């Protein structure tokens, strides 16, 4: 079953983090990706640019409205994603525990969402 791992962390912590600490987080991501790819479960993984670069297009009263910024102001921001093929939720949880969130003591979380089966 395919699961998407939505990685949330606090951008402010990242912005003030020392370069070494950022490198550490990137390194940790690389390790997870290596392991996932070695095990043949990696279907995708990308980091995102910060929410300051986000644009939201909202449908409202039949119109499309363009707004500067993310769809909602939240304490933690979506920073990237993984898609992994896991046997079940327990295996997915094990992966989620390995994926780093935040840096320099910054907090974060991973939301695990099963992907809907699509037919082609």
């Amino acid at each position: 079953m395919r699961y998407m791992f939505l990685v949330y962390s606090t951008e402010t912590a990242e912005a003030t983090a020392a370069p070494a600490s950022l490198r550490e987080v990137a390194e940790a991501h690389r390790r997870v990706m290596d392991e996932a790819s070695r095990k043949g479960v990696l279907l995708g993984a990308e980091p995102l640019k910060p929410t300051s670069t986000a644009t939201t297009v909202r449908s409202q009263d039949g119109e499309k409205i363009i707004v500067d910024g993310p769809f909602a102001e939240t304490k933690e921001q979506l920073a990237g994603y993984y898609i992994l093929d896991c046997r079940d939720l327990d295996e997915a949880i094990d992966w989620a525990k390995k994926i780093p969130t935040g840096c320099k003591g910054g907090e974060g979380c991973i939301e695990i969402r099963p992907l809907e089966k699509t037919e082609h």
Partner: protein
Amino acid sequence: MDTQAAAESVFREESGKIIAALIRISGSFDRAEDAVQEAFISALAAWPKTGIPANPAAWMMTTAHRKLIDQVRREQTVRDKEDSVRYEIEAFSPPNQIELESDSMHLPDDRLRLIFTCCHPALNQESQIALTLRTLGGLSTPEIAKAFLLPEPTLAQRLVRAKRKIQEARIPYEVPNADRLPERLASVQAVIYLIFNEGYAAASGAQLIRTDLCAEAIRLGRVLKELMPTDPGNLGLLALMLLHDSRREARIRNGQLVTLEEQDRSLWDRNEIAEGLALVQQAFRLGPVGSYQLQAAIAALHAESSAPEETDWKQIAGLYERLLELNPSPVVALNHGVAVAMSAGLEAGLERIDDLGASGELDSYYLFHAARADIFRRLSRRKEAAEAYRRALALATNNIEQEFLRRRLAQLDHSVSAER
């Protein structure tokens, strides 16, 4: 026994086992529940004519299994005819692989699988409780709703949502491996203890159903202990529940709460105490001491005292201290303070409790004020006692507790006016 009562009792006793097996076989909570329900209805129809079968449990199991197979065949036929069923959940094994051999109906691990799935931390705790009572406990949705004082649709919705999540997020139906076990077992134990407390603490309204919750929690505790007998926490938990439950008759008199100190100890259930005490000893021998064992040991010390004056408060204080190390919560600290008051001196205990209250964290906790009030009362500092009782009364939510506090206040007023 009449056949209806027999069918009901078999259903209550066995449905957890049967559902557990059928979920493994069919991969679906709903199918398993439907099959067991149908088997129960069959029993109600058949037993008055044929008499109660020699082995009613086996009859129920076989019938439920057959119902499940019928059900799947019916669905298969519909699917073959229409060939348009798009929505298919295949979280576990696909249904057309249903095994027909009856051997597959008896795997001892089934109920363990079920309890771990129901108490999976990816489900919220309310759902864990509802699902455990529904599937393992064999309680009906209205029964569970009544016991938790919730509207039935709320509870039904909770169950539907939980079952959907199990299927769609693919929560596995298995006993967790060694790495995951400690975390997962803690979650199972917490659910069982919450069910017990729900039945034990609140005594309002549907009293009978709530007593049932205690019995159900103890039954689940026994199942857990039977399935994993070497886990000291499982023994501790069962002991703790039995020792508390042993005081049930003495705890409420004429609808009024009776404190441990004032309870008629001859009303305590000696069988439950004996079993609880033996379990505590066994649990301590088994190994690492966790919070259930410590709480059970505290309850055991109370159970062993033939009179309140004989209570070994010093040892109880020591056990609370250890509990505090494991679980540093203000509530445990409060209990520790009370034990200190009873062993090392009321003033020393009061001082400790006041220190705890200094942060203001316990201000809205009624037992904090009730504990202070009780110590003031023992010290004959009536004015302070009355004030603390009043604060406790303003915070208590349960009728019986409020009634108790009011009584204490009245007693104080009485003794104050008698002095004049």
